């Protein structure tokens, strides 16, 4: 992968910048379609059951990835054509163009990552098909090919965050970054279930979810560069959580009724995927914002502030999870010692998540053109 320096400053570049929101929105729409498909699919298996390859939720999953993959391909090809024709390539479209396969293609880095995720999705889809031919339709989320598929989609979603971050001088770029962070976090909640195979005293799924939540909300704040980024990402995620809490059971039940299948006996009223996400994220994000604001009162926040804010948020998110489980599933509340231990481990992983999120947020800021001397 070679870094190439695109020509800058012309009418053509301005025009491409003014249209940059179009493929970016398409990419976000694609990832949202995938997220709808996954939320629906998980609920379908929980509340109704039978699986075939061609269920409607599966169609959403594949279509979303196809949309994201094709849009990335089109942008990469048009960027390559523009560069070959000597036309300027604007970095607002997905960030700096990098050379791929020697310099055969010029790919804006955000679209390169998103498109790579789309291509991997195809490969893991084939492997999943073979897996099902061997094991049947096992309908478990944490089989190796399923986790491979989910990780591929996450790569596409990371690319989408980068595409919007490259346009942070535009309002749509900032909103799109926070929205795509929320989409990535919602989707990742299922991937974390892969950790359930790890046998530990403290729930590895809770700790994994805590780490990811902290990383992504602190990343929002680091990218935003001023108070509000963590809160913005948390509010958007919580809005999705509330919507899918209503949507996923409704969609699963409506689809079951349309294809003439009954609901399972003993279906509960807990929506499966939204209940995996922390319900206290807005509060935790507010605390993280507060820590960062206090640390940075006299100028830019010091380098340890992201980690500290992450530790505080991690303590809250992990410590609140046993209460959330008791509230949702009517199970016995864990003892005080166990809750404190979970919160403590959550704080340690939150510390790491906050450190990484703060730094990644700073890296995201660099994707936007003409701001590369700025620090966060």
């Amino acid at each position, binding site marked *: 992968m070679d870094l190439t320096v695109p020509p800058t400053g012309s009418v053509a570049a301005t025009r491409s910048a003014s249209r940059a929101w179009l493929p970016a929105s398409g990419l976000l729409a694609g990832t949202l379609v995938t997220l709808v498909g996954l939320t629906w699919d998980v609920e379908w298996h929980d509340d*109704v*059951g*039978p*699986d*075939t390859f*061609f*269920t409607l939720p599966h169609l959403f999953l594949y279509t979303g990835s196809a949309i994201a993959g094709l849009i990335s391909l089109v942008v990469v090809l048009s960027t390559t054509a523009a560069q070959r024709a000597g036309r300027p390539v604007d970095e607002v479209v997905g960030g700096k163009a990098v050379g791929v396969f020697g310099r055969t293609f010029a790919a804006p880095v955000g679209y390169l*990552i998103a498109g*790579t*995720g789309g291509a*991997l999705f195809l490969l*893991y889809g084939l*492997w999943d098909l073979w*897996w099902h031919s*061997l*094991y*049947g*339709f*096992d*309908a*478990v989320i944490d089989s*190796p*090919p399923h*986790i*491979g598929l989910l*990780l*591929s989609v*996450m*790569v596409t979603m*990371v690319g989408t965050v980068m595409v919007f971050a490259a346009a942070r001088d535009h309002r749509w770029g900032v909103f799109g970054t926070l929205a795509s962070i929320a989409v990535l976090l919602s989707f990742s909640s299922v991937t974390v279930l892969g950790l359930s195979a790890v046998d530990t005293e403290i729930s590895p799924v809770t700790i994994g979810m805590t780490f990811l939540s902290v990383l992504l909300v602190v990343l929002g704040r*680091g990218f935003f560069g001023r108070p509000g980024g963590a809160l913005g990402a948390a509010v958007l995620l919580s809005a999705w959580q509330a919507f899918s809490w209503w949507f996923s059971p409704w969609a699963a039940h409506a689809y079951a009724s349309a*294809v003439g*299948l*009954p609901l*399972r*006996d*003993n279906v509960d009223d807990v929506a499966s995927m939204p209940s995996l996400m922390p319900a206290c994220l807005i509060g935790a994000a507010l605390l993280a914002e507060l820590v960062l604001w206090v640390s940075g009162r006299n100028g*830019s926040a010091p*380098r340890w502030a*992201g980690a500290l804010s992450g530790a505080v948020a991690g303590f809250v998110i992990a410590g609140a999870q046993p209460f959330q489980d008791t509230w949702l599933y009517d199970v016995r509340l864990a003892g005080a010692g166990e809750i404190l231990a979970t919160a403590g481990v959550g704080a340690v992983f939150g510390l790491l998540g906050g450190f990484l999120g*703060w*730094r*990644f*947020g*700073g*890296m995201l*800021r*660099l994707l936007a053109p003409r701001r*590369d*001397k700025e*620090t*966060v």
Partner: protein
Amino acid sequence: MRKFRDGAAALLATIGLLAASAPPASAYEPVNIVHTERVQAGPYGLTVGFSTWPLKAMQSLDFTFIPDGGIADKSGTFATTNPETGRQGRPNPLTRHPRKLDVWGLDIRALDSQGDWKFRFVIDGPAGRGEGELSKLPVLEQPGPPMALSWSISVLPLAGLIGFLVVAWRRTRTRVAG
């Protein structure tokens, strides 16, 4: 323009045909039991059915649990003991099979490790409560590649993403103060 219209009409016709043929394509498999075992749970005789035989670890199948005289006046729970851990799982209520509603059952469920599994039943009905178990349900070795290899292949996108982030981290070190 006309060409476009013709193309759109052809596309719509194709989608229509696909939609019309979708119901048979998405029809759900009937539950096909190829092997049964008998369990005595107190006063209740129970036939446990399997849609695949012999069983292999991680291979999904349909299970049916049919008490003599039907499920209408009975309820109960069912728990499995995994031979690998030796621990009995949480008892779950016996519920109707989603594709065969006149019997209890599990759809497309896999037993995830090889060895002799134990199925324990508690049934409540007109003759009171009865308990019983299928003490040795043999499950053969899993087919396919070893799990460590499968997981290694599956986490490659994550490894790639981490690799990319490490490179980006190093390249931006001087420009990000954080």
